[in-house]
């Protein structure tokens, strides 16, 4: 009995196969384009999932919306603009470069510069300290006397 449970337990991952949310695709080319676009979009219900992979009802509705707009001939950018106008920038996985996202986009580079500058100064200070003669002439004399004796 116990072995059977263990066996079943081990087999669990086999059954737990997850795939992208499947929608009935009438037009495979359009469907592919929709999925590519939907991967750039966030599902607002389950925020760490893309619109392409989410099974939430809202995500299904939004995929339908994207599909419909595509078949109407709207460009990807038009569709993104439409969704941003309804849900805000948060619907995009890649936040747009705006004044209030400067810190997000350029903060890491500023930190890198700051840290690099700090390191540079520190190393220069250390080198300056090392290039000073380690021993005064008297001490040098004493040392060689000791070594030679």
């Amino acid at each position: 009995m116990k072995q059977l449970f263990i066996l079943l337990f081990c087999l669990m991952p086999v059954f737990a196969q997850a795939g992208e949310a499947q929608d009935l695709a009438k037009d495979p080319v359009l469907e592919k384009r929709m999925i590519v676009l939907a991967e750039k979009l966030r599902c607002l219900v389950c925020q760490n999932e893309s619109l392409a992979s989410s099974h939430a009802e809202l995500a299904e509705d939004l995929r339908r919306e994207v599909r419909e707009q595509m078949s109407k001939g709207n460009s990807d950018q038009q569709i993104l603009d439409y969704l941003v106008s309804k849900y805000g920038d948060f619907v995009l996985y890649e936040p747009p470069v705006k004044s209030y996202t400067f810190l997000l986009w350029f903060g890491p580079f500023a930190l890198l510069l700051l840290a690099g500058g700090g390191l540079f100064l520190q190393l220069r200070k250390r080198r300056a300290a090392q290039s000073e003669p380690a021993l005064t002439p008297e001490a040098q004399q004493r040392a060689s006397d000791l070594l030679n004796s």
Partner: protein
Amino acid sequence: MMRFILPLVIFLGLAGFLYKGLNLDPHEVPSPLIDKPAPTFSLPQLHQPNKTFGTDDMKGKVWLLNVWASWCVSCREEHPLLVDLSRQNIVPVIGLDYKDKPVDALTMLNKAGDPYTLSVSDAEGRIGIDYGVYGVPETYVIDKQGIIRYKQIGPITHQALRDKILPLIAELEKK
């Protein structure tokens, strides 16, 4: 001395940011529709599906649009507050029954009381997308010119009603 102060300052700064982050709700995404015209709709009424009702019928009035559904658990939490509000006759509340079966919605309203001045049915959730709905219940305060002035994401709390929604309605009514 500096070698102790600098890390301390960095630590305190980071702790400050993280502390602030603890109190932010990532599910509350600010709506870009605030201060923009409310998307228009004309939908079948919940009680009389052969008749439609829409934003045009509310022109010149300050009103609330409450997006709800019978399958939505937090809507039930919010429901008594809405019933209470409707008794006070302060503001018309239009119910948008979102992605729901009209039968289920009507059953729920019959059982728990109907706080809505009028209900419309958005069975496919298309108007929901227009309004940027992503988590029912959501409530919009719309002014006389049809501009969205406030959006409550999630159930209306007593606090939000008292501190934000009611004062805003009073202010909008004066205009």
